[in-house]
């Protein structure tokens, strides 16, 4: 049903997706290809029914009524002795034809109305959408009954009824796309260029909704067949004598006691053709939304992790300056490598990341988004999103290697020994559970506390992190919290079990500048109180400067420079660090650093440049930089680190 190719959702190669049109992609899927071929065959059969069918569908033979399959009648005969095969073939004309006509009518009328109300907007739009909402809450069948009761039985009212019902779906899509596209600049440009409105709508906007409309059409063609068949089955649609799958089933219903086989051909015909449209619609939707269906049961093979034994503990918690295993900290990350399967070969999102975190210190990981900072934090807790897996390296925490630990052992570390807070506090809480129910999760997981005791502790902690009315606010929901308060609650949740290490992934990025400083201060206070080590992940050099003891700069899955905060800041020894600093406004306060912008982008992990990964963006690059991977030496992953020191900015 789907291609077996699998990729991490965030790494779906959008460029590749766009490069080949959806029609190309559709034709590459075997299931879709089969459906298209089968539908073409079905349509051909319907059109050329007189040539294909062995008998006339109305040819009565009272001597051979209700017969089973035979050489003369491959699918037997019905209650009037008519050939069932021929009737199924002719039935395709009525069933498919009525569905196609009704969906076409719906598409044309619905799209036009949707475009119009989307274009007019304002009052027109809100009134029309109310009517659409009301109509949509009525089940399609009831709607059809009403129309048939009003207009009378027959194929024409049935087709009309279905068309009216389905037009609603098209109105929604067309209006939605219209509203969205109206905001886009090219429409303004077209208006400014003096293009007439119809040209804008049909020439510029309509092409943008072809995708969703095609998906909807495929699905609705299936539903239309079902509804039309149902109405014919009830004797309300097609004339009872006409060859049509629904009325054939009704004939079969009457004689089911005598000749049970009669319902099989027409029933299968309906099921099969509806299935074809549904599968086609699903595939189209997958292609257009870029959804990859998950590959079956992919697990990280345990043997894939290179077991690196902890080296003899180094008493000092020195700065890790070279490649190799890290020791001496409370948390030692050594040569951590994570790969995602993309196509036939893997993509490395982390490549040999090493650092140690000492008790009570703050270590900063800096870099643009996509550099692998968050992946590092998730990997420490064994939370690497599937299908990514740790393929080498170790994470030593208190004598255990978390990179090879099982889920059971990891769970005992998570939230208790090592806790984590996330970037967007609003997204990091479940919107439909109270803050109290969520803050107590670590307590319930680790300390066997009663709910009441856990809530007491949670209330104390909320109070400690500065949430006013802490006890009362336990019963509030996340949407009732401001961003800053939610982040405080998140911190409280992380600290409920007094962890030794806190992984803070962009803890202030989603907050207002003034709130950012408060939250950082709070973290610092709590760190002193609880003597915990913090791994602070940020793209904001200002935050690093204000809070960190040591820093690691990440680029493209590697640490490219590491050292004491002041050393790295005063004398950056990697062009990337320097570019980051230059992109940070100096004039602003230490907390005011905004997203640094450096020309170019972080290369995607499945398409890394040869040699130094930074060379396409590096203004110091020389030929040697493009030849071989650059190792981390003396705290810098740059061939020209020494020269850089001397070169003036």
């Amino acid at each position, binding site marked *: 049903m789907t291609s077996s190719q699998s990729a991490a959702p965030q790494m779906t190669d959008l460029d590749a997706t766009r490069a080949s049109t959806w029609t190309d992609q559709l034709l590459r899927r075997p299931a879709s290809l089969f459906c298209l071929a089968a539908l073409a065959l079905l349509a051909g059969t319907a059109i050329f029914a007189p040539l294909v069918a062995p008998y006339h569908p109305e040819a009565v033979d009272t001597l051979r009524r209700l017969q089973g399959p035979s050489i003369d009648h491959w699918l037997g005969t019905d209650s009037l002795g008519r050939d069932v095969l021929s009737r199924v073939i002719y039935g395709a004309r009525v069933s498919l034809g009525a569905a196609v006509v009704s969906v076409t009518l719906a598409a044309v009328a619905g799209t036009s109305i949707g475009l119009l109300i989307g274009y007019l907007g304002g009052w027109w739009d809100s009134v029309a959408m109310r009517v659409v909402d009301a109509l949509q809450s009525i089940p399609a069948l009831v709607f059809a009954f009403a129309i048939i009761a009003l207009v009378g039985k027959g194929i024409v009212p049935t087709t009309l009824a279905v068309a009216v019902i389905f037009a609603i779906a098209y109105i929604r899509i067309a209006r939605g796309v219209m509203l969205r596209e109206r905001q886009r600049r090219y429409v303004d440009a077209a208006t400014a260029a003096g293009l007439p409105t119809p040209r804008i709508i049909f020439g510029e906007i309509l092409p943008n909704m072809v995708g969703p409309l095609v998906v909807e059409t495929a699905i609705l063609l299936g539903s239309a067949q079902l509804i039309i068949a149902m109405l014919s089955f009830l004797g309300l649609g097609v004339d009872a004598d006409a060859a049509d799958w629904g009325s054939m089933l009704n004939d079969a*219903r009457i004689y*089911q006691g005598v000749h049970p086989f009669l319902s099989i051909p027409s029933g299968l015909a309906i099921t099969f053709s509806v299935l074809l449209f549904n599968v086609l619609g699903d595939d189209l939707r997958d292609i257009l939304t870029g959804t990859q269906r998950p590959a079956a*049961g992919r697990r990280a093979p345990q043997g894939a992790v290179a077991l690196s034994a902890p080296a003899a503990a180094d008493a000092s918690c020195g700065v890790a300056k070279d490649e190799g295993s890290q020791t001496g900290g409370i948390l030692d990350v050594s040569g951590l490598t994570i790969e995602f399967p993309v196509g036939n070969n893997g993509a490395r999102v982390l490549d040999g990341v090493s650092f140690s975190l000492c008790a009570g210190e703050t270590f900063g990981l800096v870099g643009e988004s996509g550099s692998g900072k968050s992946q590092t934090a998730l990997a420490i807790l064994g939370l690497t999103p599937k299908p990514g897996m740790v393929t080498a390296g170790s994470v030593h925490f208190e004598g255990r290697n978390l990179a090879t630990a099982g889920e059971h052992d990891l769970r005992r570390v998570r939230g208790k020994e090592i806790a*984590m807070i996330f970037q967007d506090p609003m997204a990091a809480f479940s919107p439909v559970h109270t803050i109290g129910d969520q803050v107590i999760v670590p307590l*319930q997981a680790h300390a066997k506390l009663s709910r009441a005791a856990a809530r007491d502790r949670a209330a104390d902690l909320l109070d400690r992190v500065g949430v006013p009315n802490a006890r009362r606010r336990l019963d509030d*929901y996340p949407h009732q919290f401001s961003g800053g308060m939610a982040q405080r609650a998140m911190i409280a*949740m992380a600290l409920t079990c007094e962890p030794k290490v806190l992984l803070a992934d962009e803890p202030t990025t989603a907050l207002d500048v003034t709130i950012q400083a408060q939250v950082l201060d709070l973290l610092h206070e709590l760190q002193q109180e609880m003597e915990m080590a913090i791994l602070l992940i940020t793209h904001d050099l200002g935050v690093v400067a204000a809070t960190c003891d040591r820093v690691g700069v990440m680029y493209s899955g590697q640490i490219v420079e590491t050292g004491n905060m002041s050393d790295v800041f005063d004398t950056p020894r990697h062009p990337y660090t320097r570019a980051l600093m230059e992109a940070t406004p100096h004039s602003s306060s230490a907390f005011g650093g905004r997203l640094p912008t450096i020309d170019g982008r972080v290369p995607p992990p499945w398409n890394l440049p040869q040699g130094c990964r930074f060379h396409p963006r590096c203004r110091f690059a020389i030929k040697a930089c493009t030849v071989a991977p650059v190792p981390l030496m003396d705290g810098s992953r740059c061939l020209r680190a020494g020269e850089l020191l001397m070169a003036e900015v």
Partner: protein
Amino acid sequence: MRKLIVNRLAASFGVLFLVSTLLFFMAELSPIDPVTLSLGDSATPEQEAMKRAELGLDRPALTRYAKWLGQAAGGDLGRSYLHGHDVANELMRRLPVTLALCLGAMAIALVVGLTAGIAGGLQPGSIADRVITLVVSLGLALPGFWLGLLLAMAFAVHLRWFPVIGYTPLSVDPLAWMRGLVLPCVGLSIHAFSVIARQVRGAVIEASASTYVQTMRAAGASSRTIAFRFVVKNAIVPVLSVIGLQMAVIVSASVVMEHVFALPGIGSMLLEAIVTNDMPLLQGGVLLVACFVLAINLVVDIFLGALDPRARPA
């Protein structure tokens, strides 16, 4: 919560008023003359005039509308044009059949659909998930009434576990009542089951990928706790409206299943009313179905309010 229920109830009555108005004027627009319908073609003009006065059709439409509305509000839905039965009585007589059929099908669709959707969504790609996905794809394409026929063939005609057609009232024989409803309920539930399972599966997968699940995992919660305490609730909220619509679809599709199994419910009455243009019967039936659907929507709104704090009125 009370505020929510009151709001929704008020809105429901508004819709009910709208539906009844539509129904009345639908009858007005209908080209079929009730007088010829009840008297036949051979009636003399005097007879026709008498009948017209008897049915109150000689008065202006608005007067009749007001009277009809007043009577309908008081539970008087008029008399059938064709056999003169009191419509309200007829509805009450048939209601238990349709109610049992629909509630049974809803229960199956909900329980099986939610279970399958959650099971598949929690382990996408597993063998169980693939089987569920396959069954759901078939269920979406299979006409429920054909499935009804097939079930009847297999379990009633061949195995004789259940009656082929017909209905035994609960008061006559509870066991026979239940046996008679099993196959229609299963047949009626299949489409709703498929839609629910499919939507829930998607919502569970989506909820599992959200940041709060990562928070919970990082906090050391077990996957079981995360799945059943956090993911399922989050997954159900966005699909509640779909579930409600499917319940309404079950109500309307009961017409078809009553036809298959010859059950004397509202559906077969509606069908008869449509075929014979018996407007009072049709109006009464549709009004009842509308009430049913509104009740479903009310329940859905209450559930939504209970599950999602953001849906509660401030």
